[in-house]
């Protein structure tokens, strides 16, 4: 018998649940127990499994009910997600049993991304383990809002409340650091059926819901009808005289007569009709989660990837955005490599512009100085697409704020969008730099000749950090030291540009409309063109300004030195120093010189003066 076994065929809407946690913490046992205790097994299923156990000389375990693959039954670990059906008096469920082995993380992600609520299992005897944390982190990243923690195998710790409360407190702290709160912590023994469907007599100290009671308290995920209207186009059909734009409404509603704008192509049209086949009557509105087809009053050229929205509420369109990403690929996710991003129905080439923070997902410790992440790790990073794409921030509209990354043929990562740089700004600086570079009148002295004479390449050193950490002091010493070694160093303070070049502008306006960045960047460009090592400190420029300055001085390298006592530096500085390190000028300057030599910026003189 090969049945995936549910006794009562399912009617009505099923709630989708996922069960996650470390390997061997008892996920499959819990699912098997849920099925048995809700009387959801088909006739003969239990006996069938018991027979297999006898044949293979093993003791019966509930987990065998769902480990359908021969491999899984032999190894005793779940390899792939499995979907099981059962029901309570309240409603039917489809339960996704996700593997807890690190190797099968992509299967866990597949299960969890498709669920509406999650149970996270922790073994009372072993306590919080690597995958307990990794899965917790991923649940947050996947946008899971309904999570209950089930502390299993309480029978192995003699039903001791101390053990339960210790795990509860440890894991609560962990979830809090992620900004997540579990709905409930439930002590159970899946093997003995305690606090699953029936209340445990051995744990009368626990007053909260049983697992089944908890499940029934979770809420169905409803379509996002109250959000702004988003209809990413899947295709355009011309099977007959109609030209139908087909797609699924990801959020919001729209009606016949509404004027819509398509992004990123930026074309406008008016909804003429909403099409359907074998429907009682033609609909006049469309809403979130419906797969629809619309026609427009005028024929305009739009295609798959365009997102239709109301004119009053368009999505963000840009090429550069920040994201939290998890990686499942065999090869590393690497800065500068190119990947395909799939976001709604858009497929665009992209690259990692910057790693802002690489993180070991099992400990949540940052991986410093890493321009890549390996399989099973996560990162905060900045992505740049080859063409502009349309999206929303994940916190505003989840459906249009998340994406997957494809490497070669496979989906290898996924992520959510947390911030962006507006296209207007990027365009402005890029256009300016392009125009300038193409109209630049070059002298007979080339950058190579200057580098040979100077003993170094041109470079821009930005010293960043909060006020009062000793940036100016360090900058002064660095300029001086370089100068005494016969290098062309120049301290360019943003303040000097403001009081001179910026004297024609009101101070607030100078900073608010980007002129501070632009004028500083252009002056810096002149100095690096002259072959100097430009040193600058700034309190006034933020992370975004730095990337804009870098657009203006490209291709000259920028070296950021961040002075901070924070455990997590902001962005991705080339050099990090504590205030104490920075105050020790001799060694601080030496550290910078070593880096510049390492990067072949300081090459040394080829003659002696």
């Amino acid at each position: 018998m090969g049945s995936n076994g549910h006794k009562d065929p399912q009617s009505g809407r099923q709630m989708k649940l996922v069960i996650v946690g470390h390997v061997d913490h008892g996920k499959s046992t819990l699912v098997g127990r849920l099925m048995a205790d809700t009387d959801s097994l088909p006739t003969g299923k239990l006996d069938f499994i018991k027979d297999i156990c006898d044949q293979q000389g093993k003791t019966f375990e509930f987990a065998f009910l769902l480990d359908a693959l021969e491999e899984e039954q032999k190894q005793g670990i779940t390899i792939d997600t499995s979907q099981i059906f059962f029901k309570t008096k309240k409603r039917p469920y489809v339960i996704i049993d996700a593997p807890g082995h690190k190797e099968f993380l992509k299967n866990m992600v597949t299960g969890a991304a498709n669920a509406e609520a999650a149970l996270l299992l922790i073994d009372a005897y072993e306590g919080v383990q690597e995958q307990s944390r990794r899965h917790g982190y991923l649940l947050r990243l996947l946008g899971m809002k309904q999570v209950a923690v089930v502390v299993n195998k309480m029978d192995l710790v003699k039903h001791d409340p101390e053990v339960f409360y210790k795990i509860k407190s440890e894991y609560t702290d962990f979830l809090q650091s992620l900004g997540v709160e579990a709905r409930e912590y439930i002590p159970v023994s899946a093997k003995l059926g305690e606090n699953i469907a029936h209340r445990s007599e051995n744990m009368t100290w626990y007053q909260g819901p049983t697992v089944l009671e908890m499940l029934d308290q979770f809420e169905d995920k409803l379509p996002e009808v109250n959000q702004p209207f988003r209809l990413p186009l899947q295709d355009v059909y011309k099977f007959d005289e109609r030209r139908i734009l087909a797609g699924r409404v990801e959020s919001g509603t729209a009606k016949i007569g509404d004027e819509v704008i398509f992004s990123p192509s930026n074309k406008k049209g008016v909804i003429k009709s909403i099409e359907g086949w074998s429907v009682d009557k033609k609909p006049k509105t469309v809403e979130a989660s419906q797969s629809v087809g619309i026609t427009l009053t005028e024929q305009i050229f739009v295609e798959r990837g365009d997102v239709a929205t109301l004119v009053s509420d368009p999505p963000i369109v840009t090429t550069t955005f920040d994201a939290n990403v998890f990686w499942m690929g065999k090869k590393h996710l690497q800065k500068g490599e190119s990947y395909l991003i799939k976001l709604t129905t858009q497929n665009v080439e992209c690259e990692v512009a910057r790693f802002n923070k690489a993180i070991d997902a099992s400990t949540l410790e940052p991986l410093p100085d890493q321009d890549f992440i390996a399989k099973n790790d996560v990162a905060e990073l900045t992505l740049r697409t080859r063409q502009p794409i349309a999206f929303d921030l994940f916190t505003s509209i989840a459906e249009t704020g998340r994406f997957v990354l494809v490497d070669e043929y496979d989906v290898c990562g996924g992520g959510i969008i947390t911030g962006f740089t507006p296209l207007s700004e990027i365009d402005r600086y890029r256009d300016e730099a392009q125009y300038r570079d193409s109209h630049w009148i070059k002298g007979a002295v080339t950058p190579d000749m200057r580098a040979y004479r100077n003993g170094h390449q041109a470079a821009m050193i930005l010293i960043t950090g909060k006020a009062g950490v000793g940036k100016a002091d360090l900058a002064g010493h660095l300029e001086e030291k370089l100068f005494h070694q016969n290098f062309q160093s120049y301290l360019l303070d943003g303040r000097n540009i403001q009081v001179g070049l910026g004297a024609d502008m009101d101070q607030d306006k100078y900073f608010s409309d980007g002129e501070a960045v632009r004028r500083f960047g252009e002056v810096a460009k002149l100095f690096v063109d002259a072959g100097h090592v430009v040193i600058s400190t700034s309190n006034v420029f933020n992370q975004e300004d730095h990337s804009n300055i870098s657009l203006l001085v490209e291709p000259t390298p920028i070296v950021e030195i961040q002075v901070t006592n924070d455990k997590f530096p902001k962005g991705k500085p080339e050099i990090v120093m504590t205030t104490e390190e920075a105050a020790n000028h001799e060694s601080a300057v030496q550290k910078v010189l070593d880096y510049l030599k390492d990067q072949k910026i300081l090459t040394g003189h080829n003659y002696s003066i």
Partner: protein
Amino acid sequence: MDHLTELENQSVYILREAYKNFKNLAMLWSIGKDSTVLLWLARKAFFGHCPIPLVHIDTSYKIPSMIEYRDKYAQEWGLNLVVGQNKKALAEGMNHEKGRIVCCEALKTQGLSQVMEQEGYTGLILGIRRDEEGTRAKERYFSPRDKNFEWNFKDQPPELWDQFKTTFADGTHIRIHPLLHWTELNVWEYIEKEKIPIIDLYFANEEGRRYRSLGCAPCTGSIESNAKNVREIIEELKDTSSSERSGRAQDQEDTYAMQKLRARGYM
């Protein structure tokens, strides 16, 4: 939105993704209830049209009225029907007495593989469901098969947020499963709601027997039942505790029969 509309919307989305992403795409039509519902959903997705060719694998052992039904609706609905048959195996006398798994593999899996090769299909849409049996419970919506037609169930691609595997190496193909999230009862409820004409083998005959799952005549058993129409089937199913495929003899041949069959390319 009721649950059937929710299921329909998801399946339509998948069908449209398949149609857009695969140049050479086909849909398997076994004449059973699932693939007929799938066909209906395709007509929903494409506004009354079915722009995808339908492949029927004729083992020659099918129950005869299945072929009549197939030809009738192929004409009525203007379908592009492609019939595949492993003529070589049949000429050599293949039948279920040589072993059910051997027979299924020769006449169904090999029959399918021959049509795929001949027509150059790179995407194949099938009406399998997760609730049918254990190995199908582990399937993806877009599930790759390698050059030898094999399913590597130990290393399946991740599938999240409805971003599917639509790129693949030469010589491999993708199986697409738009009904994966439906249950047997959902299928019947949808047939009732949409008034889909379904083959009458599913309804109880004079002797009080009907088929719950359709396949080849020698390997498919009927069940005892008085359900004469769709409504009565739904009522009957709500009360049953045996599994849908219990009448399918090949499943019972070996403990891991379905895993073995499916790993080598069976539907």
